[in-house]
Every structure is written in structure tokens, then in C-alpha cells.
């Protein structure tokens, strides 16, 4: 049933693309997602893979290679054949944070990859249990100056942990960091008021914010998030504060430019599809769909931004 439907879709797409289609791609493409199935990168990846496969006229097979905060999957693509048939769903973790944090670097985020397209930006959010006597970022900062507090994150060295560390250093407060194995258990403990504060991805926290089980104090993007216009940006209290998670497609370095162009064009068309755009909006993700050059600039900018934070927070791993 599956294969027939996909075959049908691909023949149709091939027919439409017709003679104009270049030689690439002439067989199925593997999209490596460097995290376990079910997470936000996985969801974005699967939605994109489905539609992009139709654009390219070839099936895109999703392969989850989780482990070591995304380093295993990214390292695998870095060493893969540079033919465009193995691509990576990179994130802020694989292409900015891990290379800064890890002492033994499994790959070089710039030299080992050919950027394809920056797909989406995903805001993070600072939220507290509703029993906390604070309603604004400023009140939280004031409270942290007098009381010992703790915040939960999805793990050591994750974008959420570093969002918290950046917040602490910019606000000049001390808040204990409590890492969890993923966002789910961290959320559970904040909902149960075992830990009062959390830095989380906006998509995973959004339903709890809407239902009032979490009180959102601020989003981490420079501007307010369109899906939550009432939640201020942390930058409104701490000017210059900005973090977000992002998802981008990368191919191994040395991939032929035609293949990169074909992939980037397919990614752009995919993100322009109203059905995909609608799903991304529900997910609180902002669509970028950049060119390969823009993604290369973005990676450099992100590494420059995070380097001092990682140094200040003294986060490092062997």
C-alpha cells in the first residue's frame, strides 16, 4: 500500500518534471536525522522528507541515527559519499554547539559539509510553574537575586541549557541547572512543581502554556513569536538576548553543485507548499528556506555567537 502510493506519486512527479529534470536524483535519497524518532527535529524532518521527495521525483528515506547529542548522525553524513544521496537534518546542536563543546571533535561543521538550506527557526521559551510568584522576566530576575532557584533543561550542552546559561550571565543571577534526558521528563517535573523553572522548545511547551499549566515568561527570539503574541520576548527585558533552535539541510563536503542546487530548489518549493507551511506554523516554527550561501553564513554567525557563552558557562565534554 505504501510503496504503491509513493511509486504513484513519484512517477507523477517525474512525468511533470519531464525532460527538464537533471540526472540528479536517479535513485532514492537518505535523510539522516541525528536524533531519535519522535522529537521535534524528527517531526520536521519527516514532514519535509515526504514533500521534498515528491518535488525531486525520488523517495527520501528517513534514517534516525541518534546518539551523542546528534554527533553520531552528523559524523556519519560527514564521512558519507559526497554524491547528494545522503543528506543530514542538521540543527543548532550539530552545527554550532557540539563542535564548540566537544573536546574531541568528530567532524568540522564548516569544512566537512556542503550547506543546502536553512529550513526553519524554532523559538525556545522560558516558563515557570504557575505556583511561582512571578509574572514577568524582571520579577524572576529579582527573585533569583534573593532566593536559591533551579531550572530544568533537556540535557547538558543542549541549546536549552545554553539558553539558560546565556540568560543567567546577561541577567547577572545564579540559578542551578538541572539537566534531564530529554524535554519530556524535564517538563513533567516542572508541571509537578518539582523544579520551578524550565527552558524548553516552544513547540513542546506550547500546549501547557495554552492550558495554563505553565506560565510563559518570555520567548528567546528577538521578536515575539507569531503563535504566542501575548508572550513578550526576553529581549524586551534583557536587550540583545536571542537564542533559537534551527533545522537545516546539509550534504557532505564535495557534493556536486548541481545536486546541491536541485536539493535547495526542492527544499524551497517544499517550504512554500501551504500544507507544509501550515504544519510548521502549528509547530511555532518560522520558515526561512534559505539558499546554500545564506546557510553557510548562518552557521558562521551561530558559532561566533555561541563561542563566548560556551566558554563562560564552562561547558565542555570529552
Amino acid at each position, binding site marked *: *500500500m*505504501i510503496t504503491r*502510493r509513493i511509486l504513484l506519486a513519484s512517477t507523477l512527479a517525474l512525468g511533470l518534471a519531464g525532460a527538464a529534470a537533471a540526472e540528479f536524483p536517479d535513485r532514492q535519497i537518505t535523510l539522516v536525522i541525528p536524533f*531519535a*524518532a*519522535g*522529537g521535534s527535529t*524528527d*517531526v520536521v524532518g*519527516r*514532514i519535509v*522528507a*515526504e514533500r521534498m521527495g515528491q518535488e525531486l521525483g525520488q523517495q527520501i528515506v*528517513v*534514517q*534516525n*541515527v*541518534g*546518539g*551523542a547529542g546528534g*554527533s*553520531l548522525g552528523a*559524523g556519519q553524513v560527514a564521512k558519507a559519499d559526497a554524491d547528494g544521496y545522503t543528506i543530514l537534518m542538521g540543527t543548532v546542536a550539530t552545527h554550532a554547539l557540539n563542535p564548540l*563543546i566537544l573536546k574531541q571533535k*568528530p567532524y568540522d561543521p564548516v569544512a566537512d559539509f556542503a550547506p543546502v538550506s536553512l529550513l526553519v527557526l524554532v523559538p525556545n521559551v522560558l516558563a515557570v510553574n504557575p505556583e511561582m510568584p512571578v509574572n514577568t522576566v524582571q520579577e524572576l530576575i529579582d527573585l533569583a537575586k534573593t532566593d*536559591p532557584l*533551579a531550572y530544568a533543561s533537556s*540535557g*547538558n*550542552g543542549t541549546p536549552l541549557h545554553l539558553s539558560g546559561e546565556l540568560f543567567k550571565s546577561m541577567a547577572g543571577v545564579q540559578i*542551578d541547572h*538541572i*539537566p*534531564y*534526558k*530529554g524535554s*519530556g*521528563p524535564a*517538563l*513533567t*517535573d516542572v*508541571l*509537578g512543581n*518539582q*523544579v520551578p523553572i524550565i527552558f524548553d522548545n516552544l*513547540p513542546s511547551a*506550547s*500546549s*501547557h502554556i*495554552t*492550558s495554563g*499549566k505553565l506560565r510563559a515568561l518570555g520567548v528567546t527570539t528577538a521578536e515575539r513569536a507569531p503563535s504566542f503574541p501575548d508572550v513578550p520576548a526576553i529581549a524586551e527585558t534583557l536587550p540583545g538576548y536571542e537564542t533559537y533552535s534551527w533545522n537545516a539541510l546539509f550534504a557532505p563536503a564535495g557534493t556536486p553543485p548541481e545536486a546541491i542546487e536541485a536539493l535547495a530548489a526542492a527544499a524551497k518549493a517544499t517550504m512554500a507548499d501551504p500544507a507544509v507551511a*501550515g*504544519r510548521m506554523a*502549528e*509547530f511555532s516554527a518560522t520558515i526561512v528556506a534559505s539558499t546554500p550561501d545564506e546557510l553557510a553564513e548562518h552557521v558562521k554567525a551561530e558559532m561566533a555567537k555561541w563561542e563566548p557563552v560556551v566558554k563562560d558557562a564552562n*561547558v*565542555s*565534554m*570529552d
Partner: protein
Amino acid sequence: MDLLSNLALGFGVASSLANLAFCLIGVLLGTLIGVLPGIGATATIAMLLPITFQLEPVSSLIMLAGIYYGAQYGGSTTAILINMPGESSSAVTAIDGYQMARKGRAGTALAVAAIGSFFAGSVATFLVAIFAPPLTAIALEFGAAEYFSLMVMGLVMSVALAHGSVLKALAMVVLGLLLGMVGTDVYTGAPRFTLGMTQFADGLNFVAVAVGVFGIAEILRNLEDEHDREVMTRNITRLFPTRDEFRQMVGPVLRGTGVGSVLGILPGGGAILAAFASYTVEKKLSKHPEEFGKGALAGVAGPESANNAGAQTSFIPLLTLGIPANPVMALMIGAMIIQGIVPGPNVVSEQPELFWGIIASMWIGNLMLVVLNLPLIGLWVKLLTVPYYVLFPIIMAMCSIGVYSVNSNPYDLFAVAFFGLLGYVMSKLRCEPAPLLLGFVLGPLLEENLRRAMILSRGDPTTFVTRPISAGLLVLSLAILVLVFLPQIRKRRDEVFTESDA
């Protein structure tokens, strides 16, 4: 009654022809992958996620849920027949179920597992319907200190659960704890015991360890002495339990359902802990504890009911809070998000057809499983008559594919080989694999929660006894310890039971 009208709505949605068909597809697929050792529900659901794109949200979730509990059924089948737990929670079933199969009672064991699972599944489904919101509130009361004490209780149980030498059981638990430490330290990010291989940065894969110590070790043992297997296949007498056996399973099934329903709600391995807990309870209450590990009926009936009840109630935190209790539930969240449904407390009120439809489909799915599986028992048992030189290579291939499919990590296959050898050596030394596995599962949780509780209490260890739930669990563990280490008490207790029987 709100509940009745809600359930009526749910059954209305779930019994539409399309949804019945998807439920059937789900449970069939689930049974199939459960029977193939190693290929877990997680991998299958992940592969099917993109298809759910095209389906109605209710239909897709009904199908995925069907795969999940279908896999629980199928996993027990392989645990009983070839000592190869297809799912982590059926590791306990393998202990006595496989021994029953070796004594020619494979049919009985499979039937008991199916009937126990069906009963537990039905009860747990209604518990989900009635108690979902209040039960979730209880689960939220569990903080790091409570989890730590719960894990302590689990470990104490694992020692009580072993038959034979307490010292060897302790050694196995400790070995399990050490193996559980492999991987990146959650708090400092330091890699521990990874031998410099990033492939082990996230620790050893549970499926790889379980398949190794149970399954591969069993194959090695069988190759050493083929006669064992011949005996096993010749002795199959009956397929279905006798009236007497039915009477024996009532108590274990009831208790297992209770234990499983409660522990299933807790995130982080609720169903597997439930199976272990139920096994310990049955062994403690049994008039013939010496039978456990040698093919006790209660040792199959109790844990099977417990793990199925746990599998069912683990939907409670998912449906009411949007919090996954295990990796499969995390995938279900992914499936909901793909459909544009944000899982969380609002699902019940905003999408009642979805919520109640899924709950009703769980019961329908369980019914389908029992109807499917009881007639199939004869077929499964015939599997045992397949000559070993055909069966073993097939099992090995299936295991390898299954283990690899979890993370696409070839190092997991090295782990299978290593733990297969270790399991073989352990069986030669008469050491039990079950306490090792429990130590392996609970160790990381124990450590993580101990340290988290200590950070939260700012270094004050009294947090474990000043929080009531935590203190209660610790007292309970102490009581279990006393029962284990004072054999006189056990002897006297046995006498009391004999007297009351007379």
C-alpha cells in the same frame, strides 16, 4: 452518566468499518513484529509515521496504538517459546514461560499469557477511561526523591526475585548497575566506561543486552546439548489450560493487573518494573516458591497481566498531559503533531472523538488480539518442531536486523555478541540474567534521580525520608529486605499458609 456517553461516543468512532480495519492492521503488524525478536514497536512505528500523514488522525493513532499493544502480545510469544524476549517488558515472562515450554506446556503458557493480557488490558482500558485525570495528578507528585526510593524498591525486589543464591543475585544486580553506567554522565557530560567509542556515548542498548543474555546465550546452550530441544518438542500434550489451571491463574492475574495499572502511569519503564514487581509478589505469596524459575504458572500469569495493564495505562500521561512514559509514547506524540494535534490536557475537551475513540479502540484491539492469538497458539507451538539448524540461523538473523534497526548502530551488534557470550558463561556459573537486566534498567534512573534530588535539596539527604511518598517506599523496601534475609520468617510464614489451607 458522562462516562457512559463518552464511552458510547468512543465505541461509535472506533467501530466504524475503516477504524476497525486500521485497528486490525495495527494489532496484526504488532503481533508480527513482537514475534520477530528484536524488531520492536519503536522501530516499526517510526517507519510507519510518514504513512499516517495520509490517514484520519483517529485512524492513524488507533493503528499505531494497535501496533504497540500487539507487540506486547507477540513479545511474550517468543519469550515463552524460544526464551527471546521480543519486548523489554516480556523479559520476566521468559523466566518461567520458557521453562513451561521446555516441560511441554508451551500451549498452556501461551494461553495463560493471552488470557491474562486480555483481562488486564480490559480492566486497564476502563481505568484509563475513569481515572485518567486524577491518576496523572498522582504521577506528578513523583519527584526525584520519590523516583529514587521507587528504584531502591525495584532493586531490592530484584534480589528477592532470584531463585538460588542471594549472593549471586546481588552480584548480578551490581554487574547490571555497572553496565548501566556506561555512557555520558547526565550532569557533567563526562563519558564513562565507553572505551573511547562515541557509539557508546548514550550507553548500551537495552534490546542488545536483553537479546544477548537471554536469547543468544540460550542458543549457545542448546547447541551444546541438542537433546534438550527434542525432549521439549515431543512432550506437547495440551494446548489449553485445564479448569484447575484456570483457577490457579485468577489470583496472579488480578494482582498483576493492579500492580501494572499503577506502575504503568509512572514515566520511565513503568511496564517493565510492573512485570518484575508482579513476579516478586507472586513468588512471595506462592505456596510453592521453589517452583518459580522452573515453570510456575503464576510466574507467567502475573507479569503478563502486569505488563499489559502497564502498557495500557502508560497512555494516561500521554493523553492527559502530552508527556511520554516511554519511547513508543514519544513517537505517538510525534504522530499527533504530524496530524496537527498538539498533545496535552486540551485533547480530551477539544477532540473528544479522538480521545474516547482511542480508548474504545484499545479494548476492541485487545479483543482482536485474543481472538487472533488463541487459534494461533497451535501454529506457534509447531515452530518448536522446526529443526534447530533451520530455526537458530533464522533467529540470529532476525535478532541482528531487529537490534540494528533501533539506532542503525553497528556497535549494538557487537554488544549482542558480547552479551550472548556473557550470558552463556553466566548460565554455566548458575547466575540469573533477570537481576542483571533489572539492575541495568534501574541503575541509571537510580543515579540520575539520587543526584537530582540532592541538587534540589541543596545537599540535604533527609529529603528522602521527609517526603511522605519517598519515605513510604523506603519503608516498604526495608520490609522486603527483612523478608529475604530472615529465612526463619519465611519458613514461619509458609507454615501459617499451610495451616490456613488445612
